[in-house]
Structures are given as structure tokens and as C-alpha cells.
């Protein structure tokens, strides 16, 4: 308990140090203030921006694209993964295609998205869904493959239907993997949501940064970057919390807590 407290103090000291450094370096003239505004100015700009409704709307747009894309990709990937895992032979049949499509960087789809949807939510969704779909699918496939073959044989021997096999055997086994996939996908989805806004101009945080950059408002660029980092931390924390909740009963989490 006190150990965690002590670590917390160290961490605060680290954050304080970072702030002090970004305050001191431009003030002392080590770096031109035009390039690195002091921390107080960055945070001040952020506070001022947070008082405007535009920023909140942009933030909402980003989170909407993120959540919607993630949810779509997640559902599609789970269904695909379970079907591939449960239907015999399908895994071998699809493996080459999965291995080929998975490493294709989703930014390759930027021109296509621009063409099809222009600067709108559709572009964001296309990139986000493509990128996060593979993250979840791969984990679901691992998870389905992890179903103990003895357990699977037992289930078959007792004549469980396909549906109850999926519900009582495949799904519980795969769940930790699925949650890992969700966690990885959530981070990737956030990156791609911001990318789409930045490059294609779909409304959101990324577009705000793009606007600030082209008008040369450096403190605003910094402020928005800090905000995007904070949102990123929030997104990660939320997904971790969800993971912890969903897996509370699962031995893989319990041992982690005990260790």
C-alpha cells in the first residue's frame, strides 16, 4: 500500500519535472518560444479552448467515430472469428487470405475513403473499422484455437448442439483473448480516427489540429496534442476497466492480481 503511494509520488514528481522542463526551456531561451511555448501557455490555451463549444463538438465527433468504428469492427470480427473457428476446415481455407490482408496498412485506404466519402464520418469509419477488425479477429482466432480439444471432444460426446458449444465452451475460453483484441483495437482505432480527421479532414480533433497548424497557431497545436494524449489515456483506461469487469471471474485475471 505504502509502496504504491510512494510510486505515485515519484510519478507525480516525474510529471512535475516534465512541466517544469517545458516551462523553463523556452523561458530561458534555450529553445525559441515560437517553437516550444512554455507549459503554462500551452495549458492556458488548452483551458481557453475547452471553454469553447467547438472543441467539445470536435471531441465528440472523434469519440463517436472511434466508438462506432470500434463497435462495428468488434462485432464483425467476433462473428467472423467464431464462424471460422467452429466450422471445420474453414480455418485452413481462410488462413492465406487473412495473412495477406492483415498487414495491409489501413492508411492505404485513405485515397479510397476520400473518394467514396469525402471529409465525413464515413471516411473515419472506413479506416477505423479496417484497422481494428484485424486486431480483434486475430485474437478471436487464437482464442478459439485455445479451446481444449479434450473439452471439445467431451462436449461433442455429450451431444451439445453447435449453439450451446459456442456459448458454453468456445466463448468462455476465447473471452480473455477477445478482450485483449478489444484493448489493442481500441488504441489502434483512436490512432486511425485522428488520422482520418487529420489527413482527410473529417470533423474532429484531428481536423482542429490541421486548422491550427495551417494558421500557424503553435500553442493551439500543442494544446490539442496534449488533449489528444489525455483522451488516449482515457480511452485506454476505459477499455482496461471494461476488460477487468468482464473477466473478473476469469482465472487469467485472478492470477494477475495475486502476483
Amino acid at each position, binding site marked *: 500500500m505504502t509502496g504504491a503511494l*510512494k*510510486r505515485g509520488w*515519484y*510519478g*507525480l*514528481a*516525474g*510529471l512535475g*519535472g*516534465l512541466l517544469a522542463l517545458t516551462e523553463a526551456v523556452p523561458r530561458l531561451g534555450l529553445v525559441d518560444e515560437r*517553437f516550444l511555448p512554455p507549459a503554462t501557455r500551452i495549458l492556458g490555451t488548452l483551458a481557453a479552448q475547452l471553454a469553447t463549444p467547438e472543441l467539445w463538438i470536435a471531441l465528440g465527433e472523434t469519440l463517436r467515430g472511434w466508438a462506432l468504428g470500434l463497435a462495428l469492427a468488434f462485432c464483425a470480427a467476433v462473428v467472423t472469428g467464431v464462424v471460422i473457428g467452429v466450422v471445420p*476446415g474453414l480455418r*485452413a*481455407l*481462410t*488462413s*492465406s*487470405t487473412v495473412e*495477406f490482408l*492483415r*498487414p*495491409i*496498412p*489501413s*492508411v*492505404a485506404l*485513405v*485515397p*479510397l475513403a*476520400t*473518394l*467514396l466519402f469525402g471529409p465525413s464520418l464515413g471516411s473515419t469509419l472506413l479506416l477505423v473499422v479496417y484497422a481494428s477488425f484485424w486486431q480483434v479477429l486475430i*485474437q478471436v482466432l*487464437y*482464442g478459439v484455437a*485455445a479451446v481444449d480439444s479434450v473439452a471439445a471432444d467431451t462436449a461433442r460426446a455429450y451431444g451439445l448442439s453447435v449453439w450451446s458449444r459456442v456459448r458454453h465452451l468456445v466463448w468462455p475460453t476465447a473471452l480473455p483473448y477477445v478482450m485483449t483484441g478489444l484493448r489493442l483495437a481500441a488504441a489502434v482505432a*483512436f*490512432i486511425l480516427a*485522428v*488520422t482520418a480527421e*487529420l*489527413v482527410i479532414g473529417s470533423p474532429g480533433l*484531428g481536423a482542429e*489540429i*490541421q486548422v*491550427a*497548424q495551417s494558421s*500557424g497557431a*503553435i500553442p493551439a*497545436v*500543442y494544446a490539442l*496534442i496534449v488533449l*489528444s*494524449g*489525455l*483522451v*488516449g*489515456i482515457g*480511452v*485506454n483506461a476505459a477499455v482496461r476497466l471494461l476488460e477487468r469487469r468482464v473477466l473478473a471471474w476469469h482465472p487469467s485475471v485472478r492470477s494477475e492480481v495475486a502476483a
Partner: protein
Amino acid sequence: MRRPARLLTLLALPALLVLAWWAVSGGSFYLPSPDRVGRAFVETWFSERLVVDVLPSVGRLLAGYAMAALLGVGLGVPIGLSPRLRATLEPVLEFFRAVPPPVLVPLIMLLAGIDTFMKVLVIVSGCVWPILLNTVEGVRALDEVLSDTCRMYGVRGPSRLRRFVLRGASPQIMTGLRQALSIGIILMVISEMFASSSGLGFTIVLFQRQFQITEMWSGILLLGLIGLGLSVLFRRLERRVLSWYYGSGAARA
């Protein structure tokens, strides 16, 4: 007897998909048929573009990635070895990792201008975090019994670093490198899309703006192939570096 069967299962679905593509592509303006994309691919990319646009892009990616790897591992090892340093820096590092790397592109462009240096810097600054944090985690989780063994048998200094610390942390370091590779590709492409007059990303966006749809698709195909090629190379490297790890069954999924 079994080889042809295996080949069939490998190729059946891709062949089916290409056929479907062919069937669908007939009338659509946005989706040219595979043979036209294939021809455009050869014409577009096996030309001077290969030397002017493609190779420099890939070169910048590899240079930035290598620098990020050196930096990430070089900083991650001391941070991972010192509990105090780790406790102090972890929140800061977590913050930097949470910043979506693409937002660094406009910033660095403002600061460093639009040149090769900026593009490499973007890649370094985006790739370094996953490598750094995974290295820290790997070094932190080194086995204490092995650490005691090193102390007992006088393994210290550079030898300890090379034979124990880096090897022991290598599974996590490789995880970080894998995450960084896909971030690197994203940054390579968008740093060129955003502001540039050459490079792969720039060329593809140019095709799109000029409605050269077939060429645009050939560019998407090329990016896909680059991603695939790099990930195959990476997997080879991983298999080699971590053969002991996969063999020992310590690896799970």
C-alpha cells in the same frame, strides 16, 4: 498427393475473391477490374517512380525505424533496471505513448519544415514509444533467479547486458518493435500525404485527386505489398531471435 491439396486450400479463397472482384468491377467507375489494376501496377511502379518515390519512402521508413529502435532500447534498459527511474518516468511515458502518433506530423512540420529530416523525425518520434515502453516492461520482468545467478557467477557489466538483460527482455522488445513497425508505415504514408512533393503517399493522393482511379488502386496494392513484405521479414527475424522462446513454450498466443 497432399501438397496439391494444401495448395488448393491456400489458393481457393483468394482465387474466389479475385473472381468476385472481376465480376463486380464491370460497370463501376471506382472499382476497375483486376487486370487493369495489374497492368497499371506494372506501368506505374516499374518506372522511374520506383527510384524517385518508392525507394526513398521505404528508406526513410527503415532509417527512422532503426533510429527509434536504438533509442527505445537504449533508454528502455536503464529505465527498466532502476525502479526509481521507472516510477518517476512511467506516467510521462504513458502519456507520450497515448498521444496518437499522426498528430506529431503537423507539429513537426511546423517546427522542422518539410524535408527528409522532418519525415524521418516523425517516424522516430512515433515509433519510439512502443519500443521504449515494452523494453522497460521486459527488463522489469527479468527473472530474479537468473539475475541472482548472474551475480553469483560474476556475470556483470556489458556481458550481463548482452547475455542476460537484452536476451531476457527480447520477447517484449520484439513485441514493441512489431507495434512500432505498423505505426512507422502509417507515419511514412501520412507524412507524405500531408505535405510533400514526392514519395509514395504523395503519389497515391495525387492519383486520387486527378481521378486516376486505376493508378490509385495500383498504389493501394503497392502499399499493401510493402506492408506484407515488411511483416514477413519481421516474422523471419522474430522466429530467429526468439527461437528459444517459442521452443520453451513460454510464448502464449
